[in-house]
């Protein structure tokens, strides 16, 4: 058993750490949240040049063919910005769906360009109505001649406004089906919605009798469900990694403040009310780290552990991130409650990532099913 990262992975982590510091510092994120800056193609291009978009792309499609653990070190560091933008949705949601579907024609068409960063994609899963997303796929796909017609609505699609294609989970002849829809697409309206967390762009997708070619079908039935299951595991582990990075950054902010802020003649961190709070938060963060590193490793293995560990990581990391942001706000006092301080950016991201692709109750129930209660 070995819980450590390789030297290459540590180098990757260092690079990511420096990238976040230089390209995605606190001022940048604050300006972006205030609408004074945007996530640009220039930043995207820098990540592409570092090879990050091709980490999971197989070598036969000009990618690096590396593991989820290799990607995980970057995702954790990104959470410390937090890095806004479409990286995770494109690399994990779109890239992994297409890679795992093993549809040669689609792989050929999308994977090398995804790896080269020429295009970006995302995945449309959630729909309005029942919050248990498994039983709530109503986007319909009807066959008409040489085409499919899509009708319905998707919500909370991450970064669809920055995507060149979207993989849609639909219902086709009573079965789950995955379709790759290139954007723009006549009859498909994509509206970015104004949400709490401005580092994650969430979109509403309206399909109004949208005509897509027959070969847009990526997978159907059992194989579509298997692919979807794996991708949902991976995105939840990816978010959990982001949350661990974010949680660590927020605790660092809180501890730094507790060492320097003087009240009643001593740094507030000397008071046990603050010190014990900080210690509890570290306990949660380190626990989150243990489970999410294991979950990242399990994604590269065969077997049910990938599902169990992914849901466990999502549950624990979500509650950790929410609690860390809440309690560090309390440590910071008035300044933490102000828009000016960056704390609220993390707090809102915790709310967003915690509910995307299944919230804690969803994942606990998923575990209950997997563990046969």
């Amino acid at each position, binding site marked *: *058993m*070995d*819980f*450590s*990262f390789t030297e290459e992975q540590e180098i990757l982590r260092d690079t990511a750490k420096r990238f976040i510091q230089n390209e995605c510092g606190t001022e940048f994120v604050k300006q972006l949240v205030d609408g004074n800056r945007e996530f640009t193609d220039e930043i995207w291009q820098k990540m592409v040049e570092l090879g990050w978009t091709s980490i999971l792309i197989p070598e036969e499609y000009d990618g690096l063919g590396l593991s989820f*653990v290799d990607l995980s070190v970057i995702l954790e560091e990104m959470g410390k910005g937090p890095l806004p933008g479409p990286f995770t949705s494109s690399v994990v949601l779109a890239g992994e769906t297409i890679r795992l579907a093993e549809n040669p024609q689609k792989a050929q068409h999308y994977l090398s360009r995804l790896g080269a960063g020429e295009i970006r994609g995302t995945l449309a899963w959630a729909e309005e109505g029942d919050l248990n997303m498994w039983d709530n796929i109503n986007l319909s796909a009807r066959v008409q001649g040489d085409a499919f017609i899509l009708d319905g609505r998707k919500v909370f699609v991450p970064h669809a406004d920055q995507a060149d294609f979207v993989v849609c989970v639909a219902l086709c002849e009573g079965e789950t089906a995955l379709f790759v829809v290139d954007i723009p697409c006549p009859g498909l309206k994509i509206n970015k919605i104004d949400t709490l967390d401005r580092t994650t762009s969430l979109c509403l997708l309206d399909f109004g009798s949208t005509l897509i070619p027959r070969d847009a079908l990526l997978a159907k039935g059992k194989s579509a469900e298997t692919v979807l299951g794996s991708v949902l595991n991976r995105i939840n582990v990816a978010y959990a990694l982001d949350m661990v990075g974010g949680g660590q950054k927020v605790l660092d902010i809180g*501890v730094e403040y*507790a*060492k320097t802020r003087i009240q009643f*003649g*001593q*740094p507030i*961190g*000397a*008071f*046990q009310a*603050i*010190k*014990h709070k*900080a*210690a*509890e938060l*570290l*306990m949660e963060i*380190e*626990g*989150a*780290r*243990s*489970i999410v*590193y*294991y979950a*990242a*490793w*399990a994604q590269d293995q065969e077997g049910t552990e990938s599902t*169990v*560990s992914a849901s*466990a990581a999502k*549950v*624990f990391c979500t509650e950790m991130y929410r609690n860390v942001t809440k309690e560090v706000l309390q440590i910071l006092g008035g300044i933490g409650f102000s828009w000016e301080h960056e704390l609220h950016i993390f707090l809102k991201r915790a709310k967003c990532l915690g509910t995307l692709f299944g919230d804690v*109750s969803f994942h*606990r*129930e998923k*575990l*209950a099913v997997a*563990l046969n*209660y």
Partner: protein
Amino acid sequence: MDFHYTEEEKAFKEKFDSWLMSNAPEGYLGNMDYEPPEDWEQMAAEYRKFQRSLFDAGYAGINFPKAYGGAEGTVMENIIVSEATGPIYFHTMGGLHVISLGLAAPTILAWGSEEQKQTFLPPTLSGEIIWCQGFSEPNAGSDLANLNTRATRIGNEYVIEGQKVWSSFAHIADWCILVVRTDPNVPKHKGLSYFLVDMKLPGIEVNPIKNIAGDPEFNEIFFEEVRIPEDMRVGQEGDGWKVALTTLGHERYVGEVALASTFLREYEELVELARTVKLNGAPASKDPLIRQRLAQIFVELMVMRYNGYRNMSKLAKGEMPGPEGSIGKLFWSELHQRLTEVAVDLIGPYHQLNDPIYRPYHSTRWIQRFLRAKGNTIEQGTSEIQKNIIGERVLGLPKDAARAKKKS
């Protein structure tokens, strides 16, 4: 990163597991209905027998040198054996091994003289000697260094006077690891020394104290003019604080891995319980709220297990664990309370049953565990002390003004 066993480790595990099948106390392995013994004499006898069989088979003291009766095994072998034996020690022997194997033996190995190692390690690893711990005193709990039991040197002997309290297993222990004050004239941490004391010596009186579960597991120990030879001191005079606190790293981490597997067994029993209890016309395991609570416990147990593996993985590479090493005790002690709370909530009014005859749903076992778990956040350093340690030594937060002044 790799969580697979190697071929050698797999083979070792298979061999050990099959050995255990025929050497574990009868009726425990795989039996969710197992009821633990309640009598300490019986548990001590069970412990001695089991430890002896481990020793004879070469499975005792996996990380101890062969010269002292150990197995000189790898860290992974230690994990494999600890995970398999942890639940047995805790559920069938009242955790009697904790002081002997987790504290006394590693301390003697790290700090003891050659003669002390030769004398004490083999019989400790073979279960012949059971140890208790004389650390806490009426006025020295969290502030352990405030302890007042004195050892005065007279010739080549020390004379011990004073009182210890909360000493687990002292009523059945053969020997005691004891921290006492040898020099009252230096700052409090500096005047302590560490001794090995034969519990049969004249002048030692042990009074059992019942815990809230009604179990006399710990004791007061009174020392009245107890004379011990100088060569029973571990380390130099004045080293007591260091000896007591710095040797526990490895065993603490191994202990936490063993506890994780112990709690996993309790979780399995809990799931079984949820399938048995009826709620709203169906098994409680089908109730949405119960399912959420069980799954949450499972998540936390995974966290505990992988916290432990992170520590062990560092040790295997010859490194000491970082921040993750300090959080274990704080996390597991609270987790164990949550786990047992789910169980007693599940059985509702039956959880009050502490009756030797009428005990549906294993009510006695669960209420005993629930009550015992309340001690987890107190023993071996309270949660508050753990948080001070994490806050100050890991996060680098300042000591509070009053304490900082007193220390210097």
